[in-house]
């Protein structure tokens, strides 16, 4: 077992993991209260994978991930307020309320998203790395994705390109043993994912994703080989998500005992215990990390809730980067329908404004009649899950 780092680093690792855990729990609660909508994918159980990785990255390095990345952004330094505000769909969210849980982004911290399409981030990671190499910069791109994503065509194509062009990139498979409701043995012929890219020229290692120090060590080595030798590698981090795939998952595909077994290896508990036993941290500091997380997350909820909704006249903003010569129709404002060039709609026509307001008002309307939750079996389908809000999850995805 690799040695523990110094006390300050250990505290930081513990505090970061505790913050992400607490954030995710609260996100789940806010979703139940219908403060957050859409899909909500929580990374509870996978904190060591995330924090172990980011803890050894440089500020200039890029991180790119999936739709399960609230924690990744927070680990990179994004304010939890901004992530929570995004879940609430507010202007102070990381994407101004346009992206939601699946599309977190923080350019300033080089957290490059947040993508809802499985495997969509892999080629983009290659491109980020290509640009760093092209410009002669030292940055490494760390690309994280799931076991399920390793079956996407993008996986093989990206591995080949990374190896062929010796890109400064590190691939990290967060193997939580399931792609949605399909167990790895049922979705991948090669279940040792560390081997899956070897034939393409990207060698891999497999490590325990519940051990934050093991992740740190492996990622350090991977970053070094990418940065110093321009050698892309892959790390398979074996981890586990305690919660369902997203909020409405009845988890018919796995046994309760299996979840319990993994919970006993909890990455935060086990790391705290280890630090205390080794005398690096005291019980008081462990408690302090928890309390700090609690305070930060509660403040994040308050700040998110205080943030305004995006104004309707920003609908077309950022659709195009506008130049001095906007000729022709860029977009149609279907509400007028006037040609639209993506400019701020300060002088949106009166009728268009009325119709936009009329549409937006449906956000307050309770859906009439039954809105079944497909993730619940049989008769339970007649009830709208346990959510109190107006928009119960329609599907599990």
């Amino acid at each position, binding site marked *: 077992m690799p040695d523990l780092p110094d006390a300050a680093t250990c505290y930081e690792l513990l505090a970061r993991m505790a913050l992400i855990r607490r954030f995710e729990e609260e996100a789940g609660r806010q979703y139940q209260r219908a403060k957050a*909508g*859409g*899909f909500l994918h929580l990374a509870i159980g996978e904190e060591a994978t995330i924090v172990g990785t980011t803890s050894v990255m440089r500020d200039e390095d890029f991180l790119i991930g999936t739709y399960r990345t609230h924690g990744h952004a927070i680990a990179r330094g994004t304010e939890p307020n901004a992530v929570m505000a*995004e879940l609430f*769909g*507010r202007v102070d969210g990381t*994407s101004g*309320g*346009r*992206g*939601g849980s*699946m*599309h977190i982004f923080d350019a300033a911290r080089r957290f490059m998203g947040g993508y*809802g*399409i*499985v*495997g*969509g981030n892999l080629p983009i990671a290659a491109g980020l790395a290509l640009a760093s190499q092209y410009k002669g910069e030292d940055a490494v791109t760390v690309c994280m994705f799931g076991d*399920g994503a390793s*079956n996407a*065509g993008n996986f093989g194509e990206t591995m080949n390109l990374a190896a062929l062009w010796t890109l400064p990139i590190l691939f990290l498979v967060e193997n939580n043993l399931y*792609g*949605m409701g*399909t167990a790895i043995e*049922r*979705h*991948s012929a090669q279940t040792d994912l560390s081997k899956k890219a070897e034939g393409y020229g990207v060698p891999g290692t497999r490590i325990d994703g519940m051990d934050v120090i093991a992740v740190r060590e492996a990622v350090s080595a991977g970053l070094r080989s990418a940065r110093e030798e321009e050698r892309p590698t892959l790390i398979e981090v074996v981890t586990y998500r305690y919660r369902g795939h997203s909020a409405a998952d009845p988890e*018919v*595909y796995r046994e309760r005992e299996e979840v319990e077994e993994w919970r006993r290896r909890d990455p935060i508990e086990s790391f705290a215990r280890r630090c205390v036993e080794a005398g690096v941290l005291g019980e008081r500091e462990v408690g302090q990390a928890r309390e700090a997380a609690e305070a930060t997350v509660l403040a994040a909820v308050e700040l998110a809730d205080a943030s305004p*909704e*995006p104004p*309707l006249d*920003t*609908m*077309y903003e950022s*659709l195009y980067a506008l130049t001095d010569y906007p000729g022709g129709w860029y*977009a*149609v*404002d*279907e*509400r*007028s*329908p006037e040609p639209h060039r993506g400019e701020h709609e300060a002088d949106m026509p009166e*009728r268009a404004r009325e*119709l936009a*307001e*009329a*549409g*937006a*008002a*449906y*956000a307050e309307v309770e859906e009439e009649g039954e809105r*079944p939750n*497909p*993730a619940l079996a049989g008769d339970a389908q007649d009830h709208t899950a346990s959510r109190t809000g107006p*928009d119960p999850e*329609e*599907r*599990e*995805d």
Partner: protein
Amino acid sequence: MAELRMREALRDAMAEEMRRDESVFVMGEDVGVFRGAFKVTDGLLDEFGERRVRDTPISENTIVGAGVGAAMNGLRPIVELMTVNFSLLALDQIVNHAAAIPYMFNGQAKVPMVIRMPGGGGHQLGPTHSHSFEALYLQVPGLLVACPSTPGDAKGLLKSAIRDDNPVVFIEHESLYGVRGEVDDGGEELVPFGEARVRREGSDVTIVGILKMANVAMEAAETLAREHGVEAEVIDPRTLRPLDLDTILGSVAKTNHAVIVEEGWPHGGVGANLSALITEQAFDDLDAPPQRVTGADVHMPYSKRLEQAAIPHQEHIVSAALATLEGART
């Protein structure tokens, strides 16, 4: 007749056809053990087993491509893509292969397969999970495109699609899965492709709506009658390829006004296509230009208010209908 939800009607269509024809099978992501992302395939694995209900890896292009190959070799695959959004990853197999093969090999091969995919917005799923691609598939020669709005039509059309010898893109709307309606449970009540359904008769304005927008058009028609004394005729084409243009033109000949409603983007949309066809074929019948009601020309925002502002509602349809009756552009 039985009252069923749309998801049950679709499942029954598949189950009945699988019982009837051993060559029909289902494959897709999480269609088996997980019972489908929207529980449309619920129960199929239990009844038909893993040979005929196949969970696949997350490999959309390959799943569709394998369906194409299986269809060329005598089977009738039903491929479920979890949502239309992910069908973009399979666009190569759908357009360059499934749709092109019968034509480019001069009829030596056929591709009898159904590619089912749910879409639409309204659930705060944001820019990558809320698409409406009826227009995209409508554009491709060689494909049939179905887009049912009621459980009864969904079942009858899906059965027709499975028996058809062409590749069918079968588009479902996520908001309609829980909607109940009368469904034939006899098993032989097929809904033919290329036959529109007049959902409401009226003499003042023709409103064509697809998928969920057919239902929203019905609401708008009631409002128009109640508040404005306008009688709208509401038509659901049910299939976009082939298209029952005769029914639409017949209605326009009667009402002299047309409104087309869809959830998708305005440029090159279903409404753009239909209003061109109506204008070309029935210019003399029109008293005013056709009006289009579409989703906003943006990637679906997550914020609930922005999203609702980006989706057509009955207010938009009422407004468009009144505008065309006034003979003015809005």
